């Protein structure tokens, strides 16, 4: 049992996109703020701070997670993935990111990091999604720019591309 006192800062350590990170946080510090302000990982955005908009969505131990509804203290020892971990290298976008770019699935980009995390997580488990399934997944996000249609198109295109890439590697 660990009890962290309200008025002091406590060490928080976890793995972020495969690398160990650590910082200090009061118990009340949100994971979204810890990522952005303590670790400088500003790819994760903050929209509403009450779980509705989905901009802050990250992956904690394989679970889609609103970082604004999570305390930094809660993820001590966990494995986190954020949008910074999606690109295979600093100068190359991943398949899903490229599909977003081709289809204009982002305009201002405020919602994008969260949506990419949801889709990345979902496509890994459901390689051949239907449009209805993508729409259902997107109900957990708000985008004020695109009208969603290009996001759905990008998601389906990326799914198809990822599946055919897998086939090629397994045929070879």
């Amino acid at each position: 049992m660990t009890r962290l006192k309200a008025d002091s800062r406590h060490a928080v350590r976890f793995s972020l996109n495969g690398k160990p990170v650590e910082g200090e946080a009061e118990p009340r510090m949100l994971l979204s703020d810890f990522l952005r302000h303590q670790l400088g990982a500003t790819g994760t955005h903050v929209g509403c701070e009450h779980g509705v908009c989905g901009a802050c969505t990250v992956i904690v131990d394989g679970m889609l997670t609103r970082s604004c509804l999570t305390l930094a203290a809660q993820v001590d020892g966990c494995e986190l993935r954020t949008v910074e971990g999606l690109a295979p290298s600093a100068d190359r976008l991943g398949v899903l990111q490229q599909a977003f770019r081709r289809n204009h699935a982002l305009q201002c980009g405020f919602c994008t990091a969260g949506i990419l995390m949801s889709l990345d997580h979902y496509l890994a488990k459901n390689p051949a999604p239907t449009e209805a399934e993508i729409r259902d997944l997107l109900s957990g996000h708000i985008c004020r720019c695109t009208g969603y249609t290009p996001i759905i198109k990008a998601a389906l295109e990326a799914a198809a591309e990822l599946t055919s890439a897998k086939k090629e590697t397994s045929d070879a």
Partner: protein
Amino acid sequence: MKPPAFDYLRAESVGDVLDGLAQQGGDARVLAGGQSLMAMLNMRLAKPKLLIDIMRINELRRIEREGETVVIGAGVRQADLLAWPKLSEALPLVALALPWVGHMQTRSRGTICGSLAHADPSAEMPLALVALGGEVLLRSARRRRRVAAKDFFAGMMLTARADDELIEGISLPIVKGARVAFREVARRHGDFAIVACAAMRTQSGVRLAVGGVADVPTARDWPKLEGSALDDALNAFAYELGARDDVHATARYRRDLVRMIGRDLIGEVLQ
């Protein structure tokens, strides 16, 4: 906004939770999936002095058949229950209602018991508990007790749980070969229900449970009714629920939905 200051206790056993609740009482809050509590803290609608995180307690993560019931522990997330292979067979009503609880991104963290503790009048899991006639398993350092669904919900976001009690789990009856139906109307899928209804064929007739209208989910049993007798019964029930106007819908619209969905679902389960 940001949450107010509180101590954070990472409980490793049920004993840790019960001690914390006994010492701090009404100033302590259990932190389960955080999908309702954290939003309330961010908006400063709640100002607890202590949060007790129960999600690292393995013994609370059980989904088990016990005789003719299924026991679901406080650590079971909504996504865990949806992924339980026996769900549609053992708890078909829950299988229908659970996908309506929030979004995939909130079901991944939110728990079944947290939804019951939160007791939102529009929430689907309290409705399912009442429709099925389940029980809530409460435990404090002093005692253990079981409370029937209809006695558990006391009002809007109010339950029979005392400040020092943990909802350790719930018990839902397995109704063999039950015919069940569920339907909800909300602004968007994933929003809280304007009206949600669950119907179940019973030995003597039919049960209809309604959420989103009264302060608590409410069930009503009828013998097999048809035609205008059914319409009259549904109309009386719709009025008894005491619908109110709010930003989402008028009282009249809610009554309409109870009558219409009620008739459809009862038709479905009696077919």
